[in-house]
């Protein structure tokens, strides 16, 4: 037998008060705390420092570009602190990055300028992601950077929608990083024979340095020959 609506309403209303308002749900849907990169199999937390380290050709640049592509496609503004000036917008565009939403800062190989630039960016607030690309800088110089810088970044971006990503050949941020991924190249796949060979794929291994019991993730990055 159907209950009268008058009896049901107060009970329903009391439960509804426990449910989040619709606007909050929409907002969380638009700005989830974690950005999951389905194609790579990793996630990045907003308002936290994440680092990706790896030796040459380990796929750290390609993986970071996937993150930038996802954010800039949604209209978010991201920034690249390009420590050595090695950033290649062509491959970024191939990865799907909306270049019009990207602020590019070339630091000419200067460690101090790179860190100060990142500092200015975290103070500005509102960036979807700030990528501090330290690839190509000498580790000897980078180890001289005080650890306090990383904690400063962590504190500054806390409770903001920004994902702070650092890429370098070795891990640097230590415990200031919420997520630390170590990437390596399992092998590179080539097609063709003789001198007519084309680089096709990188088979990558991504290991988390923070969650030791987590099994490594295997992913692949493809070479886009359409524009080359």
């Amino acid at each position, binding site marked *: 037998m159907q209950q009268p609506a008058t009896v049901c309403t107060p009970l329903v209303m009391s439960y509804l008060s426990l449910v989040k308002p619709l606007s909050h749900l929409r907002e969380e849907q638009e700005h989830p705390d974690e950005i999951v990169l389905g194609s790579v199999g990793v996630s990045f937390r907003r308002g936290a420092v994440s680092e990706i380290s790896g030796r*040459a050709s380990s796929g750290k640049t390609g993986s970071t570009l996937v993150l930038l592509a996802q954010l800039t496609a949604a209209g978010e503004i991201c920034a690249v602190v390009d420590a050595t000036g090695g950033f290649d917008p062509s491959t970024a565009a191939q990865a799907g990055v909306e*270049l019009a939403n990207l602020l590019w800062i*070339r630091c000419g190989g200067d460690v101090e*300028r790179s860190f100060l630039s990142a500092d200015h960016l975290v103070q500005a607030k*509102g960036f979807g992601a700030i990528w501090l690309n330290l690839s190509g800088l000498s580790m000897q110089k980078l180890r001289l950077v005080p650890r306090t810088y990383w904690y400063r970044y962590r504190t500054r971006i806390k409770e903001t929608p920004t994902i702070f990503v650092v890429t370098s050949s070795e891990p640097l941020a230590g415990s200031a990083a919420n997520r630390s991924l170590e990437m390596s190249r399992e092998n590179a796949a080539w097609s063709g024979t003789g*001198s*007519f060979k084309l680089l096709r794929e990188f088979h990558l291994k991504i290991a988390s340095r923070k969650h030791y019991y987590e099994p490594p993730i295997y992913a692949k990055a493809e070479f886009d020959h359409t524009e080359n």
Partner: protein
Amino acid sequence: MPKLFVCITVDDVSAARRFLLAAAREFSFAIEIIEDGIVFDASGLERLVGGPESVARRVQDSLDALGVAGRIGLADTADAAMLLARGGKNKTTVNSPQNFASLPLGGLDIERDTLNVLSDLGVANIGELLAIPRDELSQRYGRDFDRVIKRIEQRGERLLTPNIRESRVSWSFDLDQPVEDFEQLIFILNHGLERLFARVANYGKSSDRIDISLRLENRKWRRYEIKASFPTLERGFWLKLIDLRVSLEPPEAAIAAVEAIAHFTKPRPDQRGLYAVSRPEPESLLLTAGKLKKLVGTHDVGVPVLLNERLALPFRLDADALPVGKEKREQNSPRPVIAFHYFRPAHRAEVELCGRKIVHVRTREFSGSVVECGGVWRAASKWWEASGWRTQEWDVEVENAGVYRLALANGEWSIVGEYD
């Protein structure tokens, strides 16, 4: 409330335009430039200035101060004020039945033939024309003459059409003593911007560009053009932006005078989408870009732009642009690609060849046997230029190292960058 219009006529409008505008702006914002002078609405000045006679005196004083010789007419309608200014016997004519009736017919836009007929009939001024029955005039000269009748009866329907298209306002200040450091001027500039922006706001406009001109002690001028990507009248923001810009290219001598010009633009809408993605505030983004330019250089901060050419570096950095927050229509799930990272400068390399095959690569950073090799590639969109074809490139996978782009140009081997 009774209306009051003031008309000033001069012999040479083009020469006196600036002074006429300055005089008119002391009384009104509703100003129309006409072929022989200026008309403005001075209604509502009774409490501030007084009656029409007092207003006439103030306008005359203002013209005298500016050194302009003009004829002034004041009336309840714009038409009557113009007729009085053009035909009045005195320098200043306030509307009264006697003054208006004595005005000649020349200023009424009547056809020459009609004027001659009226003259032959002994009709020489508006008072005499008003004495003729209106119906007679309409029947004799047609419906078009009704317009003239309305004017002489001071029922003119002519509306004042403000046609001053100001696009900027300026402020300047001469210093008693030259100052070396621009930051010492910030306080004075703040005061100047306050007055400047109040004037911009009076026009219902905003500004996205301010020009700062500094007169230096060596009598040279230094000019700075400061543009924002959005219109704003927020003084603090503009001061920071001006300070950043001047500190990037400081003047070579002490500053003796400062001038600021604010260019008009439409105000921006404040409302943003409720569920819009988070982006840095435009002010914050612009200031951050300014700070970064000060830190790393003006040409090293901006937005990447791809070039539709096959070059060694097929892109450039647009230092004048800022990210816009554009949404992509199609949002496919991005897939990882093999990205490229340039080495700046390129690493010099020593290469061992076995026949035409690259077998070993050695640089200061790494050394190893070549496991796989693709190439040789040559790429240049300017095929007619020989220099573009001199560079040969290979993709090489080096054992215990990475996958690199190897180049040979002018007999020298180098590693251009790595695939990552």
